């Protein structure tokens, strides 16, 4: 039997709660938003208790998401700065997709793909928040023109689709790369996972006193 080290801690409890609050908000936002976006998905409003309630709570969930995501952002933004290795990694994206990671540079806590997810969602959520306020007629109808609202509606929809697509990538990556889920469920990953995917980070983690 081969030698396994103890799981490597990747996320604190607080970070995991923060993530899941964000995740649940995002899913609820996607469901309620899609319900109001496309008539064929209007049935999703029943999940929330009808169209009126769906319309009313969607922006509030958005506020939860924004605050929650701000927490994630503050936690992780320093770890998501782009470096030269990320560029190399991106150039070899084809190999990564084909499950061939040999010869890639050693990575820190996040690879370029994860960083792109991070920055992508950061920017999109900021845009969604801004355009969302413009569309939140209950409180803010008077502050913008109808043309600005129209533009916001398009931006909001585009950003939402973008965010959903990134979310799909994010979720699929967690499914595809086995051993990932435990990072967000139990807060730790196996040593092998850390070694394989985030070697530099792994070295730092094990190098800690």
């Amino acid at each position: 039997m081969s030698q396994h080290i103890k799981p490597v801690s990747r996320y604190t409890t607080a970070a995991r709660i923060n993530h899941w609050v964000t995740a649940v908000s995002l899913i609820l936002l996607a469901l309620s938003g899609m319900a109001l976006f496309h008539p064929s998905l209007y049935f999703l409003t029943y999940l929330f208790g009808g169209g009126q309630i769906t319309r009313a709570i969607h922006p509030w969930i958005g506020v939860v998401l924004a605050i929650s995501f701000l927490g994630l952002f503050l936690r992780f933004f320093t770890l998501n700065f782009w470096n030269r290795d990320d560029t190399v990694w991106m150039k070899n994206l084809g190999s990564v997709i084909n499950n061939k990671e040999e010869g890639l540079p050693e990575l820190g806590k996040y690879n370029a793909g994860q960083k792109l997810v991070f920055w992508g969602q950061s920017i999109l959520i900021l845009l969604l928040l801004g355009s969302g306020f413009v569309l939140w007629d209950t409180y803010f109808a008077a502050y913008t023109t109808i043309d600005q609202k129209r533009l916001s509606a398009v931006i909001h929809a585009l950003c939402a689709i973008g965010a959903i697509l990134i979310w799909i990538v994010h979720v699929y990556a967690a499914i595809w790369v086995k051993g990932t889920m435990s990072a967000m469920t139990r807060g730790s990953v196996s040593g092998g996972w850390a070694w394989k995917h985030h070697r530099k980070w792994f070295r730092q983690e094990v190098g800690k006193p």
Partner: protein
Amino acid sequence: MSVMQALDLRRRSASSVPPPPAGAKAAVPVAKLIDVSKCIGCKACQTACLEWNQLDQPIGYTDGTYNNPTDLTTASWTVMRYTEYEHGDDLEWLIRKDGCMHCDDPGCLKACPAPGAIVQYTNGIVDFISDNCIGCGYCVKGCPFNIPRISQVTSKAYKCTLCSDRVVVGQAPACAKACPTQAIYFGTKDDMIAHAGKRITDLKSRGYQNAGLYNPPGVNGTHVMYVLQHADKPSLYAGLPDNPHISPLVGIWKGVMKPLSLAAIAFAGAFGFMHYVTKGPNRVTEHDEEKAAEVAGSDRA
């Protein structure tokens, strides 16, 4: 807002309408014709609208103009807008009754996400069905004329119904009934266009060379039309749009974006699935675990 209609539907928001039974008679499109050149701005139409629709508009303040209330509200579905138009030594006081234009291609209906909250009857009337309204305000964004208003109390959208509840029993809208100078006519759209033609001839004979009918093609015509003394410059009349059309932004938002977005999401899902099937999962090998242990051990040693 309107009661259950015995009117057939032509369009229904966020849903489709079954085609009429074979052999069914098509309803005749109706229209209200507002002859601005006959309007004296007395606001009888406004009060008739308040009364017939039992609207409770609060008493406001004057802002130093004759516009009272100063704008459309959830309880004022029509208001008069007064413009003092000075040209040279002459003055004209242009008085336009503002309210829903009942576009033949209604932007509100196009924008509405709630099935059946906005309907268009086969006679052309565009009506808001409150029971189905979710108060999202998309109709406000869809409307090229800035007409619908959302109630802070009921969170529903309101606007002129063209008195669909009167029309269905063969009555003219309350405003047309109340108008003392017959500046508001109601009838079939063809008749209204013909009548407007006579009025325009009269206006031209009185020196209004650019008199004409406002029935903007950008929204495929409207079921509320104006006779204007200066049809070449509709915007003179308190900002009546010169060439109204559903905003291209709304067109994108409620047009190509809807299928493309679903396609993109479906594609992303499918791509992931295919990737998983063809490439398989990315697993951590025993070798990786060993290396990890090795590194951890050596480093910690």
